[in-house]
């Protein structure tokens, strides 16, 4: 539990607070909406929770020409989407499998995924610049905004390279190295034509080649797949099971285009890829998601119109997952083994996957919904088994809770651990920034 909650209004207040905390060794934990399932904003060692969601939640600037937005840490996905839709409809941002009240900057600096991930990869790849308060209370600006002693020109936050990339000292560190106070995120042109297709795949592991091959076509903005049990969850089947004859997975392919001809060409490439897969004996078909979902009232639009609160994720008192970056060539093995683990524990399989950057890597995320207090022991045992197996196959968990980083520390090469600890000590000698994370 935190000892205090501070609602900062501006950077000057924060600088004073950081200096005070550093001199008195008081832990500081950044917080936006407390939406992270891994409990990253739950203080491991008490101290102060910095609630950015209440007052430091402004969209400071949008540069239309260079397509970026400068955000304070408390800006939420819903807020940014509404702002862009109303003011810059020709620009779009990317949104994760998360509710509208989830914070953008937290997700960005923890390399979350998004609904343009097949094209763009992780959200961390699309940062132009950061403003950070260090443990000494210094303001550091990283990226093309690094010129000037005084406040940066708002139109200077357009690029991350080519200077030494200090951004890595703050991305994926879970707030352990400094306090991020501004973040410039890339925006993209918003094409007028957007359509989503649903791929229905029969055969447990055949979803893997379908996702990989469609990813490589470079015509799809986003690919995400879920177990068939998840589709049933959306229509409130409490403990869904797969029956013979039902497909094993469905995948969502988002396609966008500037003109009808461009769209037609993309669709042709997608259809050809599906045909080739069918010729190889893979039972896959694609349908227009709007028509299919409407006719069958499958209520899957919340998986498409992101950000969204997914009822099937929040209707139980407990929710946990093993979210990882995964090597896509191992998806078959991961699916087969993890699916059988779910069944062994009598829990409906809920596997969510994505293809990132056309297939350079993937996301493998088994999810468990459960009743707290009655099923916790069983669920923790399953999650532990899934984590051990996936890590042994090279998966890298993201937004990691401490019980998971403890596992990781045992298998990461010692040189990495040594450098990691050296960097943490150097940037946060009094261990005030989110102490305890990554078992620091």
């Amino acid at each position, binding site marked *: 539990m935190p000892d205090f909650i501070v609602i900062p209004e501006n950077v000057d207040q924060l600088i004073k607070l950081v200096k005070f905390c550093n001199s008195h060794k008081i832990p500081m934990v950044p917080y936006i909406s407390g939406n992270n399932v891994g409990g990253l904003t739950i203080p491991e060692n008490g101290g102060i929770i910095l609630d950015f969601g209440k007052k430091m939640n402004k969209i400071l600037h949008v540069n239309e020409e260079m397509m970026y937005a400068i955000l304070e840490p408390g800006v939420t996905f819903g807020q940014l989407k509404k702002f862009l839709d109303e003011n810059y409809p020709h620009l779009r941002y990317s949104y994760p499998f998360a509710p509208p009240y989830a914070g953008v900057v937290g997700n960005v600096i923890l390399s979350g995924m998004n609904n343009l991930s097949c094209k763009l990869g992780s959200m961390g790849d699309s940062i132009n610049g950061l403003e950070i308060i260090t443990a000494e209370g210094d303001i550091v600006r990283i990226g093309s905004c690094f010129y000037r002693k005084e406040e940066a020109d708002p139109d200077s936050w357009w690029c991350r390279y080519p200077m030494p990339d200090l951004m890595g000292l703050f991305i994926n560190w879970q707030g352990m190295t400094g306090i991020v106070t501004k973040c410039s995120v890339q925006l993209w042109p918003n094409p007028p034509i957007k359509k989503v297709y649903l791929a229905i795949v029969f055969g447990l592991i055949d979803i893997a080649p379908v996702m990989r091959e469609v990813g490589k076509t470079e015509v799809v903005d986003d690919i995400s797949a879920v177990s068939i049990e998840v589709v049933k969850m959306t229509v409130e089947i409490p403990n869904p099971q797969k029956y013979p004859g*039902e497909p094993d997975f469905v995948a969502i392919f988002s396609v966008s285009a500037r003109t009808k001809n461009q769209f037609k060409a993309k669709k042709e490439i997608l259809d050809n890829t599906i045909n080739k897969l069918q010729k190889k004996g893979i039972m896959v078909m694609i*349908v227009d998601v709007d028509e299919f979902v*409407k*006719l069958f009232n499958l209520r899957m639009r919340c998986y498409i119109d992101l950000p969204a609160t997914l009822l099937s994720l929040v209707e139980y008192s407990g929710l946990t997952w093993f979210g990882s970056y995964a090597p896509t060539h191992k998806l078959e093995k991961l699916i087969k083994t993890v699916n059988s683990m779910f069944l062994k524990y009598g829990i409906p399989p809920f596997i969510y996957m994505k293809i990132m950057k056309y297939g350079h890597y993937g996301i493998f995320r088994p999810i468990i919904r459960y009743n707290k207090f009655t099923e916790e022991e069983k669920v923790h045992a399953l999650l532990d088994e899934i984590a051990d197996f996936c890590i042994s196959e090279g998966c890298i968990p993201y937004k990691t809770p401490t019980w998971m980083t403890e596992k990781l520390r045992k298998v990461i090469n010692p040189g990495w651990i040594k450098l990691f600890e050296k960097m943490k000590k150097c940037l946060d000698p009094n261990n005030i920034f989110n102490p305890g994370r990554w078992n620091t």
Partner: protein
Amino acid sequence: MLEIEQPDDLISISLYNILTYRKDEEFINLVKDWNKTIVIHVIPFYPVTVIFNENKIKFERGEAKKANLKLKLEIDAMLDMANGRLGPVGAMLKGKLKIKGMFRVGTLLKFTKIFMKTMKMIAADPEIHFYEKKRIKQ
């Protein structure tokens, strides 16, 4: 009122959603006391037997041996028919719709009114809200 049993397999769930869409008197009169057994096989999925009995409708996975009507319909043809791109005759000519029991003209016509018409109504309904648990149509 109609009692429609909530199934838990994918195709029955889909058929359930189609059959629970209409609340109007015409639909209730069509369905009530129909007392027929219809097999619907949406390809490439599996057959489902829909049993209309008095004011109840229930679903069973698999194909009932004795049925008043048996239909095999490809999913893409089903979507085309719902969205007015293809008619039943066209679907049959293309081999995408196969009907066993066609000579039972009365049953076939009534089924068309119950099922095909409702599909078209759903596809044309701009009001369908995908997030709501149940649509209530006045």
